[in-house]
Each structure stands twice: as C-alpha cells, then as structure tokens.
C-alpha cells in the first residue's frame, strides 16, 4: 500500500469530474450556468483528507462550504442538485454513522446523487478494513452494504479514477455512492 495520495492529484481529479458534470448539464439545459466555479465541496473536516481541504482553501475554481454536521452536508447537496450544481461530500467515517437517517431520508428516498469521499481514520495498512480492530473502520463498508450504497477503496494514486467513476455512478443510479479514502493525502 502506498504511503499517501498527493492532494494535488485529488484536486485535479475533482476538477475534471466537475468539468465533465458541467458539460453534461450544459448539453441538456438551455439556461446558462449561474456560476463561474467548477463545483462544490461540502466538508465536515476529515483527518485523512486534511491536505486536500487545506489546498482547496486556495483553490478558486472549487467552492468549499464547511458544514457543522454531515446531516447538513447531505441536505445542502440535495439543494445544490435541485439547482443543477455539481457537488462532492468530503467527510469522515464517524460522520457517516452520525448521519445515517439523512443518508436514508434524503440521498436514498430523495433519489439524490450524493457522492461521498469518506476518510477511514485509523485504517491499518496491513489489515483489511473489515477486520480492523477499530470499530469506526470495521463497520463502514458493512453499513454501506446494508443500505445498498456502492463503494470502493481509494488507497493510492492509481485509484483516483474511482472518483469520476463513482461520481458518474451516483448520477446513473440517482442515489448515493462512496469512495473510502484509506490513507492520508499528502
């Protein structure tokens, strides 16, 4: 397993993902875009993705809204979706557990394409996450499985292609998808 994922690589991948989303919308919608930036990140700060979040502070082409809770982030994502705006959630596994009712009531029942990037703080590099000694790591994939949320592991630079793939998948299935960030960004 690599040591880290470069934050710059994640951000460039997010930009490409947003560009693709905006192009898809522009092909379907008659109205001009309301915004000049590429897309939105809704974050509740996550240790694994902290260098990405720090770099995003200086990134003018992506707008970041820091939310007090993950419940808020999912609801804001639904509102942005109604207005046609591309959005990615960056949270931590504990936040997923804290916001299960909103995952169900908004993302699933509302058929909202919510794409999560979920940091797996304390994920051991030498263990499958499902066998982690930390419950916060161990229960994440089973929880997503219980709710039928497609997910994949982002565990090195070669995995960043999962970001656009699972973003597209959330649009195609009109519901939540997730990539689990298994190591720190650098």
């Amino acid at each position, binding site marked *: 397993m690599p040591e880290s994922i470069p934050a710059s690589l994640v951000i460039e991948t997010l930009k490409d993902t947003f560009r693709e989303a905006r192009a898809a919308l522009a092909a379907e919608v008659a109205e001009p875009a309301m915004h000049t930036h590429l897309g939105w990140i809704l974050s509740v700060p996550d240790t694994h993705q902290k260098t990405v979040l720090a770099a995003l502070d200086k990134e003018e082409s992506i707008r970041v809204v820091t939310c007090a*809770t993950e419940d808020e982030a999912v609801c804001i994502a639904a*509102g942005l979706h*109604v207005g046609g*705006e591309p959005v990615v959630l960056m949270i931590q596994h504990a936040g997923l557990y804290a916001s299960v009712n909103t995952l169900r*009531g*908004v993302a699933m029942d509302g058929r909202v394409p919510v794409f999560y990037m979920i940091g797996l703080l304390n994920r051991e590099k030498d263990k499958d996450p499902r066998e982690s000694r930390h419950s916060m790591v161990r229960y994440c994939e089973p929880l997503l499985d219980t709710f039928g949320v497609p997910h994949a592991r982002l565990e090195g630079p070669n995995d960043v292609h999962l970001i656009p793939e699972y973003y597209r998948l959330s649009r*195609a299935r009109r519901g939540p998808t997730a990539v689990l960030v298994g190591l720190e960004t650098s």
Partner: protein
Amino acid sequence: MLMKPEDVLHAIAERRGEGIVVPTMTTAPAWRRIAPDDLSVTCVGFMGGASSLGLGIALARPDRRVLVLDGDGSLLMQLGSLATIAGAAPRNLVHFLFKNGVYHTSGAQGIPGGLSVDFATMARGAGYRLTAVIDDLADFTRRLPDLLRAEGPVFVELHTGLAEQTPMTVRERTPFHQQLHDARAKLLRPHPGAGATAHA
C-alpha cells in the same frame, strides 16, 4: 394573541413572488393547500433538514429568493445549520421560524427549553445579516416586503399557535423524490429536443 400559522403562510404566499419555498413539518400541509402549484420542496421524513436544503438551493440559484419555513423543534435538530448558513452567507435566503414551543407533529410534547429559547439571538450570534422577532400578524404583514427584499441571510422568528393540520393528520403528499425532480425540472429548462432530466 398568537399568530395563526395559516394566516402567516397566506401572507407569505401573497408576497413571495418567484421565491422557492422549503416548508417542513407543521407548515407543510397548510402550505400545500395555500400554494399548491408553488415551486416548493417539503421536508418530511428527515426532521431538521429544511434550513440546509434551503441553503443548498439558495447557493445554487442566487437569482431566486429561497424561503425556508422552519419549526422550532426542527431547527433544534440541526441547530448548527445557523452557523453553516451564516458562514456561507447566501444573500437570497430568508429563514422563517414558526415558534410554538412544541413538537406538534408527534403529539405536542414540549421542545427543550420550551418557549424561552431565543432563536433570533442565536441566529444573530451565528452571523445572520438581519434578524427579527414578530408576534403580531399586522406587524408581520407590514414588515414582510422589506424582509423579503433584505440582503440575507435573514432570520425571522414568528410566535405562532399550533397549525390546524400536521403531516400526521394529512398524509397524502407528493413523494420527496418526486418533489425534488419536479423542482429541478422547473428550474433547469431542457434544450428543445433534449431529454427531460438533467444530470449534473
């Protein structure tokens, strides 16, 4: 005498213009009756989410006013949204709080702190640009045009009695996913000949 929620909603309906409305819990059945063809999305099934859903729409569509019709019990469930909204600072968001001191939908149990909770002070402290407390319908009707024009985020604490209906007594409603779909379709006109649904 406390304001009747239905009277307040009638006043908002008459003056909302092209505003997008996000009602929740006990404001929802009356709003559907008063403004059935309105561009609105109702929050039921995820109590507390109205303010954040409204924020998302307001950020996406800065050209439209977004009016959140929140409840005191509901707002307590996502009280941090006051800070999130203030931080995002949408100029087009008006956050109405219908304060009655109880969880009306589930049987009128008192909310923590009851009527003594001062939401307007909390909103002001969080950083809303303008806050108001109104307990009289004539006063509300007189001030409403200015509140709807003011630079947001605006927070208006309304002291009201209980609504005649709740989501428990009026169960027929458009499913949430259909409401989102319909609202999106109204806001994002497709190219002539393009598919009806856009997927950003």
